[in-house]
């Protein structure tokens, strides 16, 4: 495999809604591991700014009711959040010796994310969707946008260790090798260890299992390969719960993910960080 998973830049995408403190250090650490640059991208959702200017705005919060802020107050708050994020990124990047940059853009998250990324980028985005600490699920505009990106995307939820990957691939699919390569790069070291879950669609998956195991062995990797024949989302979730890993590296072309909602469901169910590998 001649570096099928080359990443030139890791983009840590942030917004004001789904802010996650663990995201920046994890993204910097990942960039260092992938020998890539780290770029912070703070998107000020223009809808959010317009919201406060609207004469008809309503705000739903838990706890004490605050007076509605002015647009100026919101802008100042966003600037403060961006500055805070930049400082955190700079500190982490300096610590890891990773080249870094930071941008603040204003616009629609989906559009800005598309315009700010290139082919060899990997986007890291937070996955926290709880509202004011409540278990209610409401994705931010940025999180919605990240799911539709054509790039590899890492969805983080608090946990930041990314050393023991579980690769989830469909043998022979266009993205299988790329996902395996991504998993190997995350595992790192001369003798990387990883779990591989093969989503088989043949009656006899043994040859595929043997073939993958042999290829990984040839690369010096110690892999534990398991086969799941067209699992349901529940079965996959259960397998992940018992697997010995701390990050799921999933090829985006797995049939299970054809339905956008299934990917969302998987992200809701597993506590592991999920790297969706795209072409």
């Amino acid at each position, binding site marked *: 495999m001649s570096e099928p998973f080359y990443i030139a830049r890791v983009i840590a995408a942030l917004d004001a809604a789904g802010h996650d403190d663990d995201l920046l250090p994890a993204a910097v650490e990942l960039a260092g591991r992938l020998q890539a640059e780290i770029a912070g991208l703070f998107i000020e959702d223009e809808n959010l700014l*317009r919201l406060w200017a*609207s004469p008809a705005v*309503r*705000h739903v919060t838990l706890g004490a009711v605050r007076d509605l802020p002015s647009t100026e107050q919101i802008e100042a708050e966003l600037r403060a959040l961006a500055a805070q994020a930049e400082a955190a990124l700079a500190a982490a990047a300096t610590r890891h010796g990773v080249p870094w940059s930071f941008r603040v853009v204003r616009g629609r998250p989906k559009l800005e994310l598309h315009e700010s990324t290139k082919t060899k980028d990997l986007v890291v985005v937070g996955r926290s969707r709880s509202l004011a600490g409540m278990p209610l699920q409401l994705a931010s505009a940025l999180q919605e946008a990240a799911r539709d990106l054509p790039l590899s995307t890492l969805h983080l939820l608090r946990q930041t260790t990314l050393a023991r990957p579980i690769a989830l691939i469909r043998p022979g699919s266009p993205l299988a090798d790329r996902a395996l390569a991504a998993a190997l790069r995350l595992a790192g070291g001369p003798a990387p260890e990883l779990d591989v879950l093969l989503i088989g669609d043949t009656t006899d998956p043994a040859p595929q299992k043997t073939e993958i195991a042999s290829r990984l062995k040839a690369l010096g990797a110690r892999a534990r390969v398991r086969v799941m024949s067209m699992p349901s989302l529940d079965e996959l979730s259960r397998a992940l719960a018992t697997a010995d890993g701390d990050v799921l590296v999933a090829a985006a072309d797995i049939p299970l993910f054809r339905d956008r909602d299934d990917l969302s469901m998987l992200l809701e169910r597993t506590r592991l960080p999920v790297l969706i590998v795209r072409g």
Partner: protein
Amino acid sequence: MPESPPSPSPAQPQPAFPEPLPASALYRRCDPARLGFATTAELEPLDDAPGQPRALEALQFGLGIRRGGYNLFAIGPAGTGKRTIIDQLTRKRAAAEPTPQDWVYVYNFGEPHKPQALSLPAGRGTQLRQDVRTLIDELRAALPAAFESDDYRTRRKTIDAVFKERQDHAFQKLQRRAKEHDIAVIRTPVGIGLAPMRNGEVMEPEGFNKLPAAEQERLQTEMTAIHKEFQAILEQAPKWESERREKIRELNHDVTRFAIGFRFDALRQRYADLPHIVEHLKVAEHDLVENAEQFLAAAQSSASEVPTEIVARHLFMEQNPYDRYQVNLLVDHSKNGGAPVIEEDHPTLQNLVGRVEYKPQFGNLVTDFTLIKPGALHMANGGYLLLDARRVLMQPFAWEELKRALRASEIQIRSVAEMVGMLSTVTLEPAPIPLHVKVVLSGDRQLYYLLAALDPDFQEMFKVAADFDDEVDRTGDAELSYARLIASITKREKIRPLDCTAVARVVEHAARIAGDSEKVTARLEMVADLLREADHLAAEAGSETITAVDIQRTIDLQVRRASRVRERVYEEIRRGTILIDTTGSRIGQVNGLSVLQLGGFMFGQPSRISARIRLGKGEVVDIEREVELGGPIHSKGVLILAGFLGGRFGIDRPLALSASIVFEQSYGGVEGDSASMAELCAILSALAAAPIRQGIAITGSVNQNGDAQAIGGVNEKIEGFFDVCRAAGLSGEQGVIIPASNVKHLMLRQDVVEAAAAGRFRIIPVRTVDEAMAALTGVAAGARDASGTYAAGSINQRVEAELIALAERAKSFATPERKANAP
């Protein structure tokens, strides 16, 4: 001119010159032929304590009586074998008594810091522990399996789905409604914002303001309604989540109950005859069900279903949540038959009452009921506890806590730190365990009497004293019994057998240790030492049996090893540094005898005692007492001899003398009254101007009537003077005067006996000081005749004459004016 004698009285019998003892009286032999065996191998070992019937009766009584406070104190010096006897008697009795109950500590689910103590019939404690271990092992597998089952997952998913659907339904419904009414729903940093929307974008203020008033009104009204509903959902969410968790909790309980219920039922069935165990198992089962989440945490600490705080507790506090169901088997009698007999050699507080141990965890010391360890009282509960009294008293708080446990009839585990109020960490308060134990203390007499005098609790709690004699009679069959005792020691110590001559020599030596020809020592440890050392010599000589030669050589070696100081003292006498005359005669000077004890070795030392007389007021000055070198008993002896002088010679006139007596070249303390007869003789010699033969030493105390009284260490004293005389050369005139009442104590060394048999050394028993003076001076002491007068030239006549002369001189000094007025 002497004054008239005391009023006439019947004539007194004339004191005779005492005769020396025959050699046969100096040593009582044990006849090997009369023992009736060739070697001790033929003898039945004696496990009894010969000659200690009183102590044995007391032990039997004390061990037998089952009443509070009837604990025992075995009194006697170390090495008398009392511990062995106590051990044998208690074990014999204990073997026939019922085996007491096992005790376990278990978790107290109501008050975790107060572990519960439960009793079970002997052997069932270990069974319960094993049963619970097996149960826990099963649960380790069964509980995770139950939670992994499809049934559980389905029910769990159903709960989640129901609640998610309720939440989603509410949200989605509102989101749809908002969309239908062109209202944007946007996440903000702290909530949800609602605003009018056009083409998917939040409407600019200008755009909104351009809307018709009716449209603005409609949007405002709709947003207000949606806002209220969103707010209601948000406020409802915690309740929904709480309901969801409660449902999951109930599900977890159901699953846990199903997984463990039949196992606990089976266990309870096994202990149906023990209601308190059944009750504990019920509580344990209930607790296990209530804490099902902890076991999920143990099984899958990363599982999202488990509350974070439980995972944290599992990881950092209670590494194994099953631990609290364990059984800490404190006392296990599964392998014991009968009541326990426990001997605690190191009776510290914790070794007696048990302790709570701690283990380090994340820099702290923590404990739990599994770390409760038993003490000797636990192990002996229902049986007997044997303790050395001195060792108990030497350990801080041990004595007080032992008494407290006996008084309260319960064992309460408490640490020293707790008792002195220095415990700063959280600890356990294990429930006390009822105590039924017979404690047998052993110690020496001094300790017993001190405790009896100073500790008001002592006699209430140790009502039975088993008093072991230091020595036992050597009469009748006693020598054969002693031989069997020797046989017991050889068997126990794996010592080669003794032939009958060796046994006879051991018996004789035992009499010498006892210091009495009619007794043998009961300090068997000394006899055992003698046998061990003789066995070593016999082994070196390649002998199969120990003979009298081996025994004698052992004794000689023991003496040699210990006699460095004795040799130095005798050497200084020989060299003339210490002045002791063994020939010639001196007025007012006599050889007294004292005993020095260094470690376990005693030897006699001659001391020159001198007396000087001068005009005075009837006092006897004890120089030792004046310089505070004399002990109270010595001073008492001196006062007694002064009383004798007054009684015999001062009835009709004052004693106008002042006598001073001293132990020459004595620089240490002098104690005891065994030199009082010698001191009296020195004074009488000085008064009568009668020279005392320096070849004869004298020992014995005297009463106010002049009777000689027995003293201790007579053998060592005689041998000491013999050694000094032999070094100077035995003339046949030398010897030692002893009280006649000490003759039975004589067990003299063989060389002394031989010298006496050959007429080269004499042991002269006396009954009175008069006999002693006759033997010392060769002059009859004299007795008053019918007229109250002593025979002319006798010692007493000369003493009386001198005292009259002194009185006259004193009288003349008392009337100086008559002289002054004389013409």
